[in-house]
C-alpha cells in the first residue's frame, strides 16, 4: 500500500478527485493508514514519543488486497464523492446509527459505500447481496435515538 494506491482507490471507488488530497500526507504502517497535513511532517519531532499522527484514515490487508476507509475519513471526504453512495431515509438512518445492518436495494456496486442522510455523510458501509453491513465503530453507535 502506498499514497498513490490509496488516492487511486478513493478515485475509482468513490469518484473523489485526487486533487482533494494534495495538502495531505499519508502514513502507512502495520495495516493502518493515517492522514495528516504536510505541515505536520515538516516539524521537528525528535525526542517525542509518538502514539499516532493525524486521523485514522483506513485499514488495509496486503494479503487480501483489501482497503477499507474509516467512517471518520468518509465524514471528511465523502462530500466530494460522486458514486457508490447510499442515501438513507430517517428510519434507516436511526437503525444504521444504532448499529443494525440494512436490507436495501440500491444501484451502488458491491463493496464499500458512502452512507448519507440528506447532505450529511454518516460514514462507511459494506454493500453486498442487497444488504448494507454496518461499519459504524461500536463506540460511535447510538443506542437510542432521542431528539426533541
Amino acid at each position, binding site marked *: 500500500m502506498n499514497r498513490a494506491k490509496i488516492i487511486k482507490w478513493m478515485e475509482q471507488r468513490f469518484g473523489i478527485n485526487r486533487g482533494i488530497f494534495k495538502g495531505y500526507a499519508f502514513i502507512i504502517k502495520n495495516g493502518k493508514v493515517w492522514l495528516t497535513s504536510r*505541515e505536520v511532517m515538516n516539524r521537528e519531532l525528535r525526542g*517525542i514519543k509518538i502514539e*499516532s499522527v493525524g486521523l485514522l484514515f483506513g485499514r488495509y490487508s496486503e494479503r487480501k488486497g483489501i482497503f477499507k476507509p474509516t467512517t*471518520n475519513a468518509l465524514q471528511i471526504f465523502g462530500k466530494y464523492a460522486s458514486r457508490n453512495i447510499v442515501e438513507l431515509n430517517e428510519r434507516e438512518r436511526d437503525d444504521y446509527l444504532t448499529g443494525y445492518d440494512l436490507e436495501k436495494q440500491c444501484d451502488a456496486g458491491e463493496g464499500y459505500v458512502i452512507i448519507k442522510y440528506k447532505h450529511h455523510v454518516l460514514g462507511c458501509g459494506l454493500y453486498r447481496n442487497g444488504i448494507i453491513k454496518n461499519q459504524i465503530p461500536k463506540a460511535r453507535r447510538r443506542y*437510542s435515538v432521542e*431528539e*426533541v
Partner: protein
Amino acid sequence: MKQPILPGKFKARYASLLGEENKIFLKYCKMPLRKSIRINTIKANAKEVVSALKDKGWELERVPWFKYGYWVKNADKVAIGNSLEYFLGYIYPQEAASMLPPIILNPKQEDFVLDMAAAPGSKTTQLAQMMDNKGCIVANDKDTSRIKALRFNLDVCGVVNTIVSRMDGIWFKELKERFDLVLLDAPCSGEGVIRKSWNVLSRWSVNMINNLAGLQKGLIGAAIETLKPGGVLVYSTCTLAPEENEGVIDFALKKFDNIKVEKVSVEGLKWRNGIEEWEGKSFNSEVKKTMRIWPQDNDTQAFFIAKVRKL
C-alpha cells in the same frame, strides 16, 4: 433534589477570601452545571448547525466569550450525546469556562503548539479548530486509557494537524525551545468541577492539594523549558486552590528570570485578579495579572488561568 455534602474544611477554606460571599460560592458549588456545546467548524458550518438544532427544539444561548460556544438551556430534554450532530462531529460537549484557555493562548495557523496534558481532548480539538486544522499540535498525555479517549475525540472532530504523544510531561524539559505555544491545563484537585462531578469531593484534601502543587511546579518548569523565546504558555487549572495556582506561578517567577506574566482580558467574562497572599504566604505581585474565575461569577465551573511569556 439530591445535593453534595461539602466537607467542613472545604466550606471554610475560602471564607477569608470571599467573606459574606462564601455562602453564595458554596451555593453555586452545589448547583448542577449548565450544559454547553462547541460547534466544530472543522466539520460543520456554524450557522447551519445552530439553525438545525433550533429547528429541533434546542434552546441555545451564545457563550459570550467564544463565538462557537452555546449553552443548551433545555439540555435535560435533548440528548446531546445521542444527537445526529454529535455523531457527525458537528458539535462537541464542552463546559463554557473550559473554552477559555485556548482563547487566551490564541494560536495561529502556522504555530507549533504543545498541549501538555491533553486528554480527553476538549481543548486540543478547540485549538485545532482555531488553527483551521493547520500548523501542528502535539497533544500529550501520560495515561494510556486517557489517550484512547483523546484519539477518539480527535478523530470524531476530524482533526488532522495533531500528533498524539504519550510521555510524562516533565520530559518536555529535554526538548528545549521547541514550541511556539504551550498549553498546560494541569492535573489538579478539581475543586472547580464539583458541580459536574461530586466524586471530586471524595478525593479532596489539603494534602492532595499540596502533592498536586509539587507535580504542577515540575510541569510548569518543563513547559517553560520547551517554549521558544517570545513564546506563550497558558497555565490553567479547574481548581481554586492558591497552592495550585498563584503558588505555581510564583514558583515559576522565582525559578526563571526570563518569563513575565501578561495581563489578559476576555470580552463578556467576569473574572477576578489572582491573589497575592494565602495563609500567611506572600506571592510575587505579578500573580495579580492572572485570572481567577469563581463559579458564581459566570455560572460556570471554576477556573484559574495565567498567561506567561518567555522573554
